[in-house]
């Protein structure tokens, strides 16, 4: 009697767990369908070709120009800028941490990097306004420091922890035997580091860069606060830019639901979603390759 009751409870809870699990997965899957559904509504109304080839994002105008190009260019521009700063800095730091730093130093530095990751993006954006912006204005002799460079610097700060952590894991995962083999052949420590260890960790480093890039592309608040938000095609790092994320943040609260403009914002969100998804998948692909390689 008791035994069958226990079994019944077990079966019931198994069902409960399965149901919650599937509901959760369904909810998360819903994100994709919601984006898809709403952007299909946009493409049914608007012109898909203009969306990718036009030169203006200007929903306020009477014709309603919905071209993702300037936004996409801005997003890519500021993210690439951030990678130019964060990739060398991150990989060098990771190399130092895993290969050169003594254990005690490493145990201090790792939390420092985690702390950097924990700072909310809005606080970084705030510093972009009060600290980085004025500094850029002074250095370049321009009036206003809210531009792509500012955004790139801030995004680099935000992507650094991701890049450092994953790169460090990748470098530490290189088998000792590789290094020993190289050292035994008479190569010095540095040659070993640059010619053996780092190349062996390369897939992991690429994964780190990809995930850092994904972070930079999807960041909203810092770019919204620090880049000036001009929706024109960027010409240089001192131009104001407006990313996809910032556009959604600015305009979504202010459109009547179920209008063309509303659906257009979902359409650009889908593009962003697909880009970040591809980049994350690529990152994962490289991370897996590293895992298989060393296994």
């Amino acid at each position, binding site marked *: 009697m008791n035994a069958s009751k226990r079994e019944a409870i077990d079966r019931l809870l198994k069902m409960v767990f399965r149901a919650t699990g599937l509901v959760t997965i369904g909810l998360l899957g819903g994100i994709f369908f919601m984006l898809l559904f709403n952007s299909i509504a946009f493409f049914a109304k608007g012109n898909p070709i203009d969306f990718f080839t036009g030169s*203006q994002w*200007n*929903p*306020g*105008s009477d014709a309603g120009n919905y071209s993702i190009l300037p936004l996409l260019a801005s997003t890519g521009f500021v993210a690439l800028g951030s990678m130019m700063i964060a990739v060398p800095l991150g990989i060098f730091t990771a190399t130092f941490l895993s290969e050169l730093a003594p254990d005690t130093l490493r145990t201090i530095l790792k939390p420092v990097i985690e702390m950097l990751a924990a700072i909310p993006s809005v606080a970084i954006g705030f510093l972009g306004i009060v600290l980085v912006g*004025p500094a850029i*204005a002074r250095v370049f002799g321009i*009036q*206003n420091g*809210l531009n792509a460079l500012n955004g790139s610097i801030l995004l680099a700060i935000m992507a650094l922890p991701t890049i450092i952590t994953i790169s460090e894991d990748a470098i530490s995962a290189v088998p000792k035997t590789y290094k020993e083999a190289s050292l035994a052949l008479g190569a010095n420590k540095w040659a070993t580091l640059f010619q053996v260890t780092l190349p062996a960790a390369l897939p992991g480093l690429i994964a780190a860069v990809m995930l850092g890039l994904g972070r930079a592309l999807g960041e909203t608040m810092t770019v*919204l*606060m620090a880049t*000036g*938000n*001009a*929706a*024109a095609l960027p010409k240089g790092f001192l131009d*104001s830019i*407006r990313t996809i994320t910032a556009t959604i943040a*600015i*305009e979504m*609260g*202010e*459109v*009547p*639901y179920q*209008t063309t403009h509303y659906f257009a914002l979902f359409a650009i969100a889908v593009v962003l979603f697909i880009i970040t998804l591809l980049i994350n998948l690529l990152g994962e692909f490289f991370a897996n390759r590293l895992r298989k390689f060393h296994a």
Partner: protein
Amino acid sequence: MKYCFFCLAILLQSCIEQDKTIKIKGSDTEVNLAVELAESFHVMNPIVFVSISGGGSGLGIASLLNNTADIANSSRSINEEEITLFQQKGIQIDSFIFAQDAIAIVVAKDLPIDSISTNDLAAVLSGKYSTWKSLANKDLPVNIYGRQSNSGTHDFVKDKLSIEFSRNAKEMNGNAQILEAIRADHSGIGYVGAGYVSHGGSKALKILPVYTQENKDAVSPLDAQKIAAGKYFFQRPLFQYYKTSSYIKIKPFLDYEKGQAGQSIIHSAGYYPLRKL
């Protein structure tokens, strides 16, 4: 188990609890005024909550359409497209003008220019003049600081001058950002609500009086008498739109705004109240 009860309690609360909050949204021009009104309103009537969000006038009207606001602040009157949307959704709305606002044209203090004509202004803001050469005799680039396209101020200036803004105009998140940018920019120009500059906001800035083809007499947006007479070029009523169906809920707040206390707050915030004080 406890967890389930707790969640149930929250859900029940969300169902039973009558929503006593008046949600006011929209118009950066009016948001600070609305905050101050809400602050003092709360002292008198602590049961009624008022929550306020800024954004552009478009946000307010959109929120009203989307049923996420009770009152939409707007510094422009509702347009045809929006009227159609309201009709489509079968929402009846009313409006109420609670103050007058004037838009100030602002430049940096050391730019040698004292007033500006509407024609010149149109040329500057539309990007026809790329430097200050012809207006201020200085070979500095014109940097335009404006609002985002969904702001009522943006539309108002655009429509008043019948221009499209230059594509290089920086779209700032709010009036305050515009002021701050121009303060730092020797060759910047921008437009903000007069309420933003009348209270210490004008430090290191210059407000340009505006004249027109017909009336060569330049009028400053800070001149209350001219405003009362409707003489300033960039002058407009501030609207509050609300759904007819939620009138009962918001009535206490509207009454407060119209009353003596409300109107004096409007006055001290740098706007022009409808009632004589």
